[in-house]
């Protein structure tokens, strides 16, 4: 039980540190990577909070879906090759 509490605290700490990093990554390409990491920590936290359904969808949407869409949009805007 104490191990779970420590893990929860660790995840919250990671989230609290990663959020400013998401904001500070002013280059959107780098930001997409940080967002992916942020979502991974979130998904892991949701497993600990006994919400496997939510964790599964955050894992898919947050780590792959949204960063992918950000990168595609950037390529489209900059007119670079896919």
């Amino acid at each position, binding site marked *: 039980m104490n191990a779970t509490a420590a893990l929860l605290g660790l995840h919250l700490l990671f*989230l609290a540190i990663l959020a400013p990093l998401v904001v500070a990554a002013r280059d959107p390409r780098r930001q997409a990577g940080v967002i992916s990491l942020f979502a991974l920590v979130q998904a892991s936290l949701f497993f600990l909070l006994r919400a496997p359904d939510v964790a599964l969808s955050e894992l898919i949407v947050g780590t792959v879906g949204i960063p992918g869409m950000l990168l595609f949009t950037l390529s489209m805007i900059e007119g670079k090759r896919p």
Partner: protein
Amino acid sequence: MISHLPFYVAGWLLVVALYGMATSRNLVHLIGCLGVVQAASYLVLLAVGFRWPPAQAPIYQRDVPLETTVDPIVQALTLTDIVVSAASAALLLSLTVQIQKRKGTIDPRRLLPLRNP
């Protein structure tokens, strides 16, 4: 104090992301920050329904007697939230592409309505 920590972390995420959105120089970066705002709402919802000492996830097995579980309702709400966040991010990003096409920039400070009618 310690038992409210997830709430405070959620508040921190919200404030940091709002700061990022207000000072953003790139609409794509701004949409990335919006994701952190939504993360704060997931955290608040799930923290509200959590039970300590850790209860079961709200998923049973067929012939096992029911036990105390965490709240399934907030989890369903969070699930809805995540799908909507993906859909809204897609819509906002395609709006960004159109803005770039029409105005030639995605810096919110150069998109002031009065400057370039």
